[in-house]
């Protein structure tokens, strides 16, 4: 299956391991958030530990989504650790 590159922004402490933006190869017709998190953990093992330890919310195109939502190439994707509040 054809693949496309997706840039994923990492917010807060998630950026500590591998920096604030990571590239990931994803299927051209997209994948669910849970699969994207698994792929990201495999591609960046140092980040993988944080992803397992911390409760993550995914944000697609400025909307926080459920973990079964689909991520598609071209989406603006970010991962949020728990917010700290203002």
């Amino acid at each position, binding site marked *: 299956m054809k693949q496309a590159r997706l840039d994923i922004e990492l917010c807060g402490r998630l950026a500590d391991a591998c920096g604030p933006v990571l590239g990931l190869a994803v299927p051209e017709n997209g994948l669910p958030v849970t699969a994207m998190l698994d792929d990201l953990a495999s591609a960046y093992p140092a980040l993988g530990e944080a992803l397992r330890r911390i409760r993550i919310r995914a944000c697609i195109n400025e909307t926080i989504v459920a973990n079964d939502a689909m991520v598609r190439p071209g989406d*603006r994707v970010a991962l949020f650790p728990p917010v700290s509040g203002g």
Partner: protein
Amino acid sequence: MQVELAQAPFEPSLRLAAFSAALEDEGAVVSFTGRARGRGADGAAVSSLVLECYRGVTLQSMKAIAADAHSRFAITASIVIHRAGPIAPGEPIVFVATAARHRRAAFEAADYLMDRLKTEAVFWKREEHDGISTWIEPTARDREDAQRWRDKVNDNAGN
């Protein structure tokens, strides 16, 4: 209802003046200013507080909290201003003002706004001291304070 994300320092007293000047026959105005402290909870000096936000999502989270305050309390006007980025000790982090005919609604709405902003607004916060950066999470106390309003809903539902 006015909600702002500020990238630069602002002066709460000027914002209070403008907010009050725009009021009509409200009898009560409450304001809250949260300021960056020069000492952390452990007493160590803090050189800077840094608030990360994320695009439109942070402002949207603030607006949702302000809208909830308006639907929950008999307030007629409110303003919420929140800094993002690096904040020096003594600088304002957040300013909230509420106006109502009677003081109880104005007090409760300001208190509620702060409790929810401190736990739910989309920010990631770190303190920098001695070149070390420490991520900050809401304190147990912040979570208890925010919980008070949920308990109240449950109380009301039970009666």
